[in-house]
């Protein structure tokens, strides 16, 4: 069984010496300003073609038959009726008889037909005989001693204990001890464009338009699974409707689509529906932590002892960092991955971090209350030392000022009436950083500029960043650059995961554009009588550094090329990017203690990301990340029926995502760090939000929720318990 594709945080050196010729400009024209998305007009008009929108001549529609059972043995698959159904051009079994299916939604068979309606009808005619087996439907059940042994190596995989310091001494030094259990839910990605692709064969060559975060990785995946050379595969992703970590490979549906297309001898369109998307394309694992933690009378953390577990579904791990950020000198942790019969986890926007952050930050507020310290003061005492990638000591005060933290009341809003207000805070970290991208630049005799890179824009604005850096380097307007990305025919660039795209791609573009410009300077220099090193490109001109008049327009310069364009390749180099980000968030909530409904009214996010390339799209990333966190905090939950193991809410009306009315006032305060180079920003802002909201709800109500999502029923239950005189 596959491990979750966890995109590692890149461990690039925080500061690396680079070649000065490529250094970022010190007085940029575009970089760090608000630049509109270059593909904005295509997106707002519907002209942007996503994989879902690709239509090819004679294209068929594919449909997958999936297991309705969380655990079953396939007895027989009969495709006869499906093959005879109107419009059907291909049908295939995905698994052999006797195969054991391990989750609801696992692929069993597939068909392709002339219309989508015909494909759906035909899929219903595939006769699959199952022997239904008892499933593991919950973590509790899977861990109980009398659970059926479902997974070959056991339902539970226990990791080695991690231990630092002297735990007994740590607890001895503690004046107060908290002992509690915390947990977070399973969250699905809910990319609005579902997973899927259009596959078309030309002889033994495959072209696939895939909704993917990695055109090159997906090319490799197709080649491996189909046993064809990578050179025979072309993957195209011009536009994609969100992935959040779940789209790095062809996946089962991609290979099925390619096989259907081969069998039918026609292109096949196979995009999953919403239910399939929830069941089979990944999720963020749940997390549980039973913790004992100690704090000294003067507010120093002394000890941390945790047993943790969680499920990533059928055979996938559920790791997360713990404790998060704060320094417990003496600590122990023992983690277990628990397997159940549900769709497997995949990387999801900052894998592991929102879980570790929520658990640690809620615990931190509990400890702060015990020593009667303000949560910010308490955190400041226990943070690691300040470093370029660990700037919380600077950011907590900035956030506090922006937010008005000094108006925080102690835990429990004493205002009469059912509506209670509260403040909460938390911190986050992430890696980011980059490496490995390549690019190709052409300067054409008519003045045209093409910049090609085999990266992809997953909604973060990568296409725009490529144009910005190219235009900045060549001294041209942004719309003078033809940016071409999203195609595996273009130079290699890695998958868009781990917040590594900006820090991988922009240095490659910078290096390549500088090389192209140098080539042009070499051609033009003799004509101007200026040494190439004294030439600069700005405002659409190439001219002597100290004499603007001594130069020519960009077009004139390019005309000197004659018939032969400049064509250069370049790649990522150190010195233009770094890794490691930090941030702090503060939330204000309003809780109705009669209905249990919590509303987030305000959020302040202080976040760094190194050198900012496009301030406009960077802020959008931060806002979007924060809203991702609001959804995780209050709404989202993959609910499995505990008896049948069926997902109860595989749709968008019961699997909840906030709408426009749920949006708080958001302050996105980006800290620019030009000296560090580009780092990446997609994930960090999504990490700390849920924890800040949880702490704000506790501050408002005086009751602490230790379980996500913080739905009204949980708020009411906690208030009820408090009234009944239970523990806080």
């Amino acid at each position: 069984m596959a491990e979750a594709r966890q995109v590692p945080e890149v461990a690039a050196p925080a500061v690396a010496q680079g070649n000065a010729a490529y250094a970022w400009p010190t007085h940029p024209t575009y970089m760090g300003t608000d630049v509109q998305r270059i593909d904005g007009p295509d997106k707002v008009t519907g002209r942007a073609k996503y994989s879902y929108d690709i239509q090819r001549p004679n294209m068929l529609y594919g449909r997958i038959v999936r297991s309705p059972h969380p655990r079953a043995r396939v007895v027989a698959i009969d495709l006869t009726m499906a093959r005879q159904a109107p419009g059907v051009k291909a049908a295939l079994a995905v698994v052999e008889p006797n195969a054991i299916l391990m989750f609801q939604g696992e692929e069993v068979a597939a068909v392709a037909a002339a219309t989508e309606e015909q494909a759906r009808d035909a899929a219903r005619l595939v006769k699959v005989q199952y022997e239904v087996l008892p499933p593991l439907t919950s973590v509790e059940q899977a861990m109980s001693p009398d659970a059926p042994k479902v997974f070959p190596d056991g339902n539970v995989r226990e990791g080695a204990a991690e231990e630092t310091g002297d735990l007994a001494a740590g607890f001895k030094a503690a004046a107060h001890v908290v002992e509690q259990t915390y947990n977070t839910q399973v969250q699905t990605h809910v990319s609005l464009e579902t997973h899927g692709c259009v596959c078309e064969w030309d002889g033994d060559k495959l072209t696939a338009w895939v909704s993917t975060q990695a055109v090159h990785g997906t090319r490799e995946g197709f080649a491996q699974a189909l046993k064809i050379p990578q050179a025979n595969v072309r993957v195209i992703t011009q536009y994609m409707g969100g992935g959040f970590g779940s789209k790095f490979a062809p996946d089962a549906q991609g290979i099925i689509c390619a096989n259907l297309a081969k069998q039918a001898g026609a292109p096949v369109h196979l995009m999953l529906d919403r239910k399939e998307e929830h069941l089979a394309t990944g999720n963020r694992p749940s997390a549980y932590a039973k913790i004992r933690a100690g704090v000294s009378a003067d507010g120093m953390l002394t000890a941390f002892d945790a047993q943790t577990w969680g499920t990533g579904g059928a055979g996938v791990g559920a790791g997360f960092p713990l404790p998060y950020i704060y320094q417990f000198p003496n600590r122990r942790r023992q983690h277990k991955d628990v397997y159940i019969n549900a769709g497997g986890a995949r990387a999801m926007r900052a894998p592991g971090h929102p879980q570790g952050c929520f658990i640690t930050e809620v615990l931190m507020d509990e400890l702060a209350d015990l020593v009667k310290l303000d949560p910010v003061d308490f955190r400041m005492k226990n943070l690691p030392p300040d470093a370029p990638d660990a700037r919380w000591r600077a950011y907590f005060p900035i956030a506090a000022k922006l937010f008005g933290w000094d108006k925080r009341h102690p835990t429990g809003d004493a205002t009469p009436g059912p509506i209670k207000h509260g403040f909460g805070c938390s911190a986050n970290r992430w890696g980011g950083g980059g490496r490995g991208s390549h690019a190709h630049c052409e300067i054409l005799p008519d003045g045209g500029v093409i910049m090609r890179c085999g990266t992809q824009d997953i909604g973060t604005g990568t296409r725009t960043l490529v144009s910005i850096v190219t235009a900045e380097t060549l001294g041209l307007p942004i719309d003078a650059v033809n940016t071409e990305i999203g195609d595996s025919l273009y130079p290699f660039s890695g998958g868009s995961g781990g917040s590594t795209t900006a820090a991988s791609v922009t240095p490659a573009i910078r290096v390549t554009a500088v090389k192209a410009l140098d080539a042009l300077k070499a051609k033009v220099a003799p004509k101007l009588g200026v040494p190439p090193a004294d030439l600069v490109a700005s405002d659409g001109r190439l001219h002597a550094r100290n004499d603007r008049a001594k130069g020519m327009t960009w077009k004139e310069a390019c005309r000197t090329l004659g018939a032969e364009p400049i064509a250069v390749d370049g790649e990522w180099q150190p010195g233009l990017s770094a890794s490691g980000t930090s941030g702090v968030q503060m939330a204000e909530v309003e809780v109705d203690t009669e209905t249990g409904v919590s509303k987030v009214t305000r959020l302040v996010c202080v976040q760094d990301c190194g050198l900012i390339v496009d301030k406009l799209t960077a802020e959008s990333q931060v806002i979007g990340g924060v809203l991702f966190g609001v959804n995780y905090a209050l709404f989202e939950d993959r609910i499995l029926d505990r008896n049948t193991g069926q997902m109860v809410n595989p749709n968008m009306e019961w699997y909840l995502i906030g709408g426009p009315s749920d949006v708080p006032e958001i302050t996105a305060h980006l800290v620019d760090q030009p000296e560090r180079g580009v780092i990446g920003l997609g994930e960090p802002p999504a990490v700390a939000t849920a924890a800040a909201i949880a702490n704000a709800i506790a501050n408002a109500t005086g009751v602490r929720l230790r379980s996500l999502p913080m739905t009204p029923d949980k708020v009411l239950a906690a208030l009820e318990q408090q009234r009944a005189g239970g523990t806080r």
Partner: protein
Amino acid sequence: MAPKDETRSELDERSGVSRRFFLKTVGAGGVAASVIDGLQEALPHAQEAGTAAAPAAIGPGPVPITLNVNGQRLSLKVEPRTTLLDALRNHAGQTGNKRVCDRGSCGACTMIIDGRTRYACSTLAIEAQGHDIRSIEGLAKGTVLHPVQQAFAEADGMMCGFCTPGFVMSAVALLEKNPHPTVEEAKRALDGNICRCGTYVRVLEAALKTKGVARG
């Protein structure tokens, strides 16, 4: 036709909580009932058809239909069960409006029919005949963006962009009725649309900043 802004926003208004909460706290029956009410209200002729003599059977195979889309007559052959969204996307190459949930809960397919927003995924193509249908493809004039589209582009009211056509259509319908909405009115009008990337802040900003939308 699937009602959109009418039922949803009335519900929101009444309860004073967001649609998401509403759905979470009220049983499915309540929502379904409202949807049916809206359908009958929206389609008086359908009601008549139901009470008059039984209509001639059509389908299940493809039947010819004529749609009036963005002022153009469009003749297609689709199965009677085909939704308006699928008819335009799969049979007419008009893929601007997106299919996301395919059951009336996300708004990506939002079109404007007879001046009101509708979920095209929950509207049958044959029932949309004789109605004035506007989709995302109909807004821009060549390369000149509609003022709402222009405002979205300027405010960065999009990230991956998959929800964007639906939001643009909802914003257009709002502004044609109410050129100067309050924040609350704009939120309510857009509450039938979901964005996973989290563009709401700037979508609202765009809707509130748009100038020069003629009353529809």
